[in-house]
């Protein structure tokens, strides 16, 4: 489609103004070639309306900066029945048109230059047989654009990037823009991988800590249970021993009681017939006869002890009634208590001797 007349008029004015500049801002083209340059650009725009002529600063590899004419825009690329637009920049170097221009593929933010590509370098520089076989004055920009379109259709140089780059793309007109360096993409992947690994490690660590805490609690519970069981085992063993000892003691007591029962039975049988003589000539003091002198002494001492107790009790009553003066009362209490002690001590001593004799007797009987 031909561009509208207004646009062509505008382009005419732009090119006339740019090519006729004098002084420092003059374009570095030879005077006798400016009309041809003008014609080439006008023909190009007429055939490819998606391209626009511009002036821009170009930086050479040696660092020199120079203002040149360029055609900036897109070139159609028919591919698999669909027409795509490949963004390109065509720089008209100082030696143009005797030497070919520089053509760069200018990818947008979300595009990546395919690598390796048969015509496009990683930096976007385009190499074509038409450019290499450039012949002045027959070679021109329209044929160049046609060859670019054909070459791109055979092998598309761009494809969409999966993730957008973090930094914005350089603005159009500030020199050629280059695609993202490959290291950044790799670095991003590595960073993501490292972050993922760190996250997984942290999660695993946290899980292990939790599991360990749970296991420690469980272990402590089991150890506590074990100590409880051990303590109860000891208690049961002790209880069992005590019961065994108690059983032995009770058996011993049973034997003693059985023997005493036999003794009493014998005594009853011996004295059964004596009841008949009880009513004749009864003397209270002779009704009981102590078996030995120790028993007699024991009886005597106990009687005296209790007799003194009764006397003191009577004196208490006398003193309380007022019939006995205090000083006499206390003095007699003291005297009687002193005498009482001798009887009580003697009784205690006799009791000990009798106990020893009884124990010896039982032991002898057990042996027989």
């Amino acid at each position: 489609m031909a561009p509208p007349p207004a646009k062509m008029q505008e382009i005419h004015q732009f090119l006339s103004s740019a090519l006729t500049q004098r002084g420092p801002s003059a374009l570095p083209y030879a005077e006798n070639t400016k009309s041809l340059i003008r014609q080439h650009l006008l023909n190009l725009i007429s055939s490819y309306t998606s391209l626009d002529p511009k002036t821009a600063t170009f930086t050479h590899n040696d660092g020199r900066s120079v203002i040149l004419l360029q055609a900036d825009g897109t070139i159609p690329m028919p591919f698999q029945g669909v027409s795509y637009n490949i963004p390109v920049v065509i720089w008209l170097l100082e030696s143009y048109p005797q030497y070919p221009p520089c053509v760069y593929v200018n990818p947008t933010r979300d595009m990546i230059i395919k690598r390796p590509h048969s015509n496009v370098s990683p930096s976007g520089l385009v190499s074509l047989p038409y450019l290499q076989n450039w012949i002045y004055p027959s070679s021109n920009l329209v044929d160049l654009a046609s060859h670019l379109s054909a070459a791109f259709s055979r092998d598309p140089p761009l494809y969409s990037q999966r993730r957008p780059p973090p930094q914005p793309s350089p603005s159009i007109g500030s020199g050629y823009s280059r695609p993202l360096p490959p290291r950044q993409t790799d670095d991003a992947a590595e960073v993501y991988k490292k972050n993922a690994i760190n996250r997984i490690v942290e999660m695993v660590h946290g899980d292990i800590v939790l599991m360990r805490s749970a296991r420690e609690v469980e272990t402590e519970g089991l150890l506590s249970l074990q100590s409880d069981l051990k303590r109860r085992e000891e208690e049961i063993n002790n209880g069992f021993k005590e019961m065994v000892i108690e059983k032995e003691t009770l058996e011993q007591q049973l034997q003693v009681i059985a023997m005493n029962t036999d003794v009493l039975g014998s005594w009853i049988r011996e004295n059964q017939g004596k009841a008949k003589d009880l009513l004749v000539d009864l003397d209270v003091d002779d009704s009981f006869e102590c078996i030995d002198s120790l028993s007699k002494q024991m009886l005597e001492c106990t009687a005296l002890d209790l007799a003194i107790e009764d006397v003191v009790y009577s004196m208490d009553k006398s003193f309380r009634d007022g019939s006995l003066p205090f000083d006499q009362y206390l003095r007699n209490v003291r005297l009687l208590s002193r005498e009482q002690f001798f009887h009580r001590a003697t009784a205690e001593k006799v009791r000990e001797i009798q106990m020893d004799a009884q124990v010896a007797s039982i032991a002898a009987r057990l042996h027989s």
Partner: protein
Amino acid sequence: MMEVKLWNDKREREMYENFAELFAIIKATEKLEKAYIRDLINPSEYESECQKLIVHFKTLSATLKDTVPNIERFADTYKMDCPAALYRLVTSGLPATVEHRATVAASTSNSASIVAECVQNFITSMDSLKLNMVAVDQVYPLLSDLSASLNKLSILPPDFEGKTKMKEWLSRLSKMGAADELTEQQSRQLHFDLESSYNSFMAALPKAGN
């Protein structure tokens, strides 16, 4: 079998004689405490008799320290049922009248003689300490007399310095053996307390009094 004798030699007889005396003292103290509780005797009678029994008890228990190290066991062995006596003799060591600071209502005519008695007891106690009589059985009766006379004087307040100090010293001495002696420090402290109490006593007397 022959009849059992309580002792077999002179030494054993002496031991049982002492045991009998100890037994009698405890029994008599029990009766005395009951009589005092039942208000059958007046406090002065109780105090003097109790004082005597306490002194006898301390003297005798010191003699029997080896054979009777524990009085309660002695009481258990011979089946004595004398809790009041054991408290008085073993635990308190003071007559109830002294321990509870009973105040005897003294009449006007007796006040002068009681004051004189207090002064005499103060001087006697301080002089005894100066003469180095520091054994418990020497000091205790003097302090006991002093404490009793101070308690009899109704013009002195219950918390009078001399009363509290003497009570403290008597309680302390009652925990010691009769033959035990005060240390030099204790002796000086006691003398200081006596002198201080004596000065307070003189200051407490009414100026234009009887």
